[in-house]
């Protein structure tokens, strides 16, 4: 092998290593800064006070509450709808219809989250009758729920497809009703379905853009579903852009809590299930 070809080969391998370093450096830097600066911002009052842009006593109490409630509502919408449509795609749909639903779910996953915000903004925030209109925790939950549906649908149908066909054939041969067979198949795919739900939940818990146009943010705790509500992500956005050192410090603290939760779910799910990721 001549020297030039050898050199080109070395260059290629060096390039892929440089690319790897460039791809991973931001992740390392993010984890480093968020951990160091975030930990410094944590104290008791940070967890017991509500979001406030005045004074030096703000905290994430209402933001944590809001994220929990909004994600809860989103999952109440997204999980049953997503799981059942995933069951249809994998178990019931004819090849053609199953493929169409799967294709549309893929397209829905690709719609930018701010567009989902715009959809809920025009459908609920602007258009509901009087006591329900306006920026509300309800609208925020629905927006995140709509985002969760196609994600859960895809992860569910993928999990069901990993169940061996012999199980379906055995069920059919024994004359077991289709719905009971489906339950058995779902039980076999339970860990896959569950990890899909967990990853989808982690994903929407980190969303900000759709909430700007729906839940809006608030300095108060939960006042009912049809009032504006703070969330962790809105808290980070509002504080990050405030320009006040104390508030920016708080944004680091909130980023830390959000990041360890979201990355924690991802890491644990991957270690436990050795899952090859499909992106959610």
């Amino acid at each position: 092998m001549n020297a030039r070809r050898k050199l080109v080969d070395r260059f290629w391998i060096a390039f892929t290593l440089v690319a790897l370093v460039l791809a991973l450096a931001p992740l390392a830097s993010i984890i480093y800064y968020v951990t160091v600066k975030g930990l410094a911002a944590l104290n008791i009052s940070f967890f017991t006070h509500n979001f406030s842009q005045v004074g030096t006593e703000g905290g994430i109490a209402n933001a944590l509450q809001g994220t929990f409630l909004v994600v809860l509502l989103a999952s109440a919408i997204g999980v049953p709808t997503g799981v059942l449509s995933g069951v249809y795609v994998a178990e019931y749909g004819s090849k053609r219809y199953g493929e169409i639903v799967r294709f549309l779910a893929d397209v829905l996953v690709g719609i930018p989250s701010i567009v989902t915000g715009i959809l809920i903004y025009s459908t609920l925030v602007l258009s509901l009758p009087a006591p329900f209109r306006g920026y509300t925790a309800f609208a925020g939950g629905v927006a995140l729920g709509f985002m969760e549906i196609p994600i859960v649908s895809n992860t569910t149908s993928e999990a069901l497809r990993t169940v061996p066909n012999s199980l379906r054939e055995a069920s059919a041969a024994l004359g077991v009703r289709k719905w009971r067979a489906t339950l058995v198949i779902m039980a076999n795919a339970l860990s896959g379905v569950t990890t899909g739900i967990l990853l989808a939940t982690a994903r929407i818990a980190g969303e900000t853009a759709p909430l700007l146009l729906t839940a809006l943010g608030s300095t108060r705790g939960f006042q009912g579903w049809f009032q504006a509500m703070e969330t962790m992500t809105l808290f980070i956005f509002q504080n990050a852009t405030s320009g006040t050192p104390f508030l920016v410090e708080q944004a680091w603290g909130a980023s830390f809590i959000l990041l360890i939760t979201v990355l924690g779910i991802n890491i644990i799910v991957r270690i436990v299930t050795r899952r090859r990721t499909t992106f959610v």
Partner: protein
Amino acid sequence: MAVGSLKRRGRSIVDAGFRDLSFAFAAFIVFLILLYIIEIGYHSLPSIRAYGLSYVIGSEWNPPREIFEVLPEILGTLASSIIALVIGVPISLGVAVFLAEISPRGPRVVIGPVVELLAAVPSIVFGFWALLVLVPQVIRPVEHALSASLGFIPLFHGAASGYDLFSAGVILAIMIIPYVAAVSRDAMQAVPRSQLEAAYALGGTKSEVIQMSVFGYARSGIIAGIFLGFGRAIGETMAVTLVIGNSLEFKASLFAPAQTLASLIANDYSETIGVVQVSAIIEAGLVLLALSLLSNLGARLILRRFVKRGAQLL
């Protein structure tokens, strides 16, 4: 028990019910797509009636005078996403090649998931980190150096404050790398061993095999990955809003502040008062929806072709 259940006809009602229930929820997915198009389209109507085509070809966004035109935002969206691809795609391909062809099994099973973890970081955290770490510590010094040495080129005109189109492109590049890399890696791993072995048998070095067999065979999968990355980049809101400088004017310079459709929505929705302005904001969402549907459909169609071809060959 099996024979018994065959005889009990009553169960077929449960059977049909379960099937119909899952069908209903699957139909909801179809309904949801239509809802996006119809609802956002409907609420855009006042703006479409008022401004027509000038909405997308005009350059003035002036709420007090009730003039709403988004050409600068469309250009900003496309420009920042293209910068993201120019920076992000070579890095993604390097990572994909490393994971698919170069890395031994040990590092691969660790590094692969770690790259994917990048996709799990919330975009607000990316944006906040970019605002306070990436821009002041990395991007601004680079911009100052470039604008001092190459400032005479129009592409490098501007204040080089760090809050500009270039920063938006860089943070978007970082955010799309895990997606483009993962899809490309999957395409590369689908290359049949026989293809690689044939190229090695011809005496190819590793890099020559990668160029001949891997890139050739995986090309459509890689292109699909790039489309997916583009689709992600055009709709990204929070990270871009925090670093792009939010200027309503588009200048053909990397170092000038700009605005994207998504950042326009995020910046302007709260100040909206008039009915027409609300509608104009929603129409920005409609344009963004159209752009994202186009790039997504492109990606999916290519990906389908690639999957089918792969299946045939295997």
